């Protein structure tokens, strides 16, 4: 980091990770919890702001990068994953985090998700799932439960919701976890594990929208929580077990649901570059010779 030698780099406190910009979120929004948890994780893992970048799409949740002190990019709706992948591949030293909402990730952006899972690029994707479109003021989201009334489902939704965890496990993401915006400690633990995981990590944060779904969500979710770390039987490396978890309806399991070791994209890329070196073992200018007829 050439130009950075001159910069002073004392250890930072969690609060130092706030950018200072006042969040536009409604008072009580779950996303405040996520922001606070991230500050703590950054501090715990000693991520340098200059070496960290947060990408997001569009939505209330996607405002996150603005509130963190690090590089950030609040991009467009649904494209956070390819953008994050591009950055990580081009600059593998960076700490890359992607964040967004349920609509951003599982409606418009869902096409990138299976491909991100299979590529296993080393970054963390945090989805603040509130089962609603917050920023656009209360429309149906792909994770809205069946029969939910919203401004676009005035007689109750007739769609079966997307189950993000099922999708992630089904698409062989190598780290899949769920946590809750009402439990900072749990969030911090899970996020720290996700960020430390080598490969793609997906974290669903249940983050209530107090305005368009309701404050009571905090209580409803809290009452159904089942902490996987308290379950000695649970083995996050067992994919079948993970599939059982995603089908639960009476309780909500949180913690690391699935975890698998696999070379990440960059490892594979390095091997490929070695193999390819035979094609380019000369100055780029000399490559012109391949066009000799």
């Amino acid at each position, binding site marked *: *980091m*050439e*130009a*950075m030698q*001159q*910069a002073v780099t004392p250890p930072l406190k969690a609060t130092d990770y706030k*950018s200072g*910009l006042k969040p536009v979120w409604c008072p009580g929004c779950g996303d405040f919890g996520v922001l606070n948890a991230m500050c703590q994780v950054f501090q715990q893992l000693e991520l340098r*702001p*200059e*070496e*960290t*970048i947060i*990408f997001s799409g*569009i939505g209330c949740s996607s405002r996150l*990068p*603005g509130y963190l*002190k*690090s*590089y*950030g*990019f*609040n*991009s*467009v709706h649904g*494209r956070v*994953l*390819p*953008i*994050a*992948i*591009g*950055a*990580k*591949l*081009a*600059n593998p*030293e*960076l700490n890359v985090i992607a964040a967004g909402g349920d609509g951003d990730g599982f409606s418009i952006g869902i*096409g*990138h998700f299976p*491909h991100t899972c299979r590529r296993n690029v080393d970054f963390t994707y945090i989805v603040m799932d509130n089962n609603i479109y917050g920023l656009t003021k209360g429309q149906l989201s792909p994770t809205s439960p069946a029969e939910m009334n919203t401004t676009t489902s005035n007689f109750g939704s007739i769609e079966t919701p997307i189950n993000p965890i099922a999708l992630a496990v089904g698409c062989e993401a190598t780290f899949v976890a769920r946590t809750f915006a009402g439990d900072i400690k749990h969030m911090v633990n899970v996020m720290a594990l996700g960020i430390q995981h080598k490969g793609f990590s997906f974290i669903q944060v249940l983050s209530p929208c107090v305005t368009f779904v309701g404050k009571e969500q905090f209580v409803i979710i809290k009452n159904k929580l089942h902490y996987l770390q308290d379950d000695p039987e649970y083995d996050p490396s067992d994919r079948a077990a993970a599939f059982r978890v995603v089908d639960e309806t009476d309780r909500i399991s949180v913690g690391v649901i699935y975890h698998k070791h696999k070379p990440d994209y960059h490892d594979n*890329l390095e091997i*490929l*570059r070695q*193999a*390819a*070196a*035979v*094609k*380019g*073992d000369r100055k*780029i*200018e000399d*490559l*012109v010779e391949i*066009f*000799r*007829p």
Partner: protein
Amino acid sequence: MEGDELNLGLVGSGGDGVMIAGESIVSAAAREGLKCLMLKSFGPQIRGGESSCKIRISSKKVSAAPDTLDVLLAFNWNDYKRFGSELELKPEGVVVEEGDSESPEPERPIIGPQPATIYKLPLTRLAKETAGTPLARNMVALGAVSELFGLPDKEMKHSIKKMFSHKSAQIIEGNLKAYQSGKDYVLANFSKPEKLQLRIEKNLEKRLVMTGNDACAYAALLAGCRFFAGYPITPSSEIMEWLSVYMPAYGGTMIQTEDEIAALGMVLGASLAGAKAMTATSGPGMSLMTELLGLASIAEIPCVVVNAQRGGPSTGIPTKSEQSDLMQAVFGGHGDSPRVVIAPADVGDCFPVMREAFFISEKYQIPVIVLSDAFIAQCKASLHKPDLSKIRPWERARPHGIPVEDYKRFEYTPTGVSWMAIPGKDPYIYRAAGIEHDEKGNPTSEFAEHEKMNEKRYRKLKFIAEDACFMRYYGPKEAKVGIVTWGSCKGPVREAVEILNTQGLPVRAIVPQVLFPLNTDKMRAFFAGLEHLLVVELSYSKQFLNLLKTQLDLPAGTAHYGRSGAKPFAVSEIIEQIRKIAG
């Protein structure tokens, strides 16, 4: 055959080896130092269907594919039907076909003048006799063509060897024998057509052979591009295919994405993270990139997007060329979203154009669209080795020497360009956004900030029009008839200009490469003194004319000649149009 050039057409079915024969000729010619150019054409069949190619060879200059042919090599007259209108003979043109003196006269559905001479050879028999397989018919034919029209024999053999270098020695031997049998048959049975002998000058320098796609890919690598993300699409796929081989060796990344949206998304992420990054596509992919191009525009992220245009709209005609993505390139974004549009005019032109694309994009932090087209992208041409030392990576202006807190990523500056920090390399953290923002990058919805930022983003265009303008000029300065055209239309226009000037009608032409922002001063200077102006393009809806009108006032009475693509302009077609307006 106009003096010292030879125009050949080859047509046949999948098994006939039309393309191998054609490429052998091109390689041989290039090794001999000749100028040449080959355009391929395929029927709808995915594999094994009809195909044809047209080759033009000359020791002087080659601008366009041949309008009409000196020589037509027809492996199969049925296949000819599909391509008839593309494979017209000159009045003095000749035909080479399968047959011998005893075989019945085939039906020849020839369009235009009938052949002056027909050379019949027992291609299949000779192939079987020499190589042991009818598949070597194309080699017999190559031998015949080589002998008949004076192609460089040594280089032809070299080409054949190289073409089959991955095959066994026996196969190579068989093919060479087949080739020789074609030559021998000609020597024994025909006299060479005197007027159709390729004149080869001594000591010409060997030339390279590549397509426009090859050139774009290689030039990108030279310009410092180390990240490519793309999705396959005709006629641009060869760019990513080439980079898939050569990019990783230089520590770069070439990744095939799930779609074009992801492709440009990754490019923007990579660029923000400091890499010179690009993607390549064609119309349908370009359409899908519309939203993210706007993001690049507002967030001021450098990126290069090559669009090898094909016939549109929608899926249109994937295998043919057209110039109908121009207005989209310039005006396709929602909101006021400036970008730069630049177009190569031939294969060799891809080098300076790609250099310029990366230069503009990195220097001005703006998306640059390179509008190539199928006639350039997939045209195989011989060319002089370009001056590669001119293609050097340009480094972005990064912040330095100011306190970290004072850094404004989107600072309002006289050129509109602000310092761009690289995450992980610079301590100057900032936040970018697709949302309108202030100089620091914080979201705003205020009119005043918005106006200021629009002004900043558009201001760059003024400087780019000066800084990066380049144009080609043809014909004498004092000509009173002028032509404006762009992209691959340069070929036939240039040739038409040259012919008319020798015929005593002075005409000049201008071919701007930077189409937006256009350097209007240079355009107006060109218009000065003209009595007639003709705008030429390959688009039904007059896109180039429309684009010109939005950027400058055209002289009163400006004429326009345009039509749909799927068929390149014939030189004669352009000449006719010029004669029409010049009276």
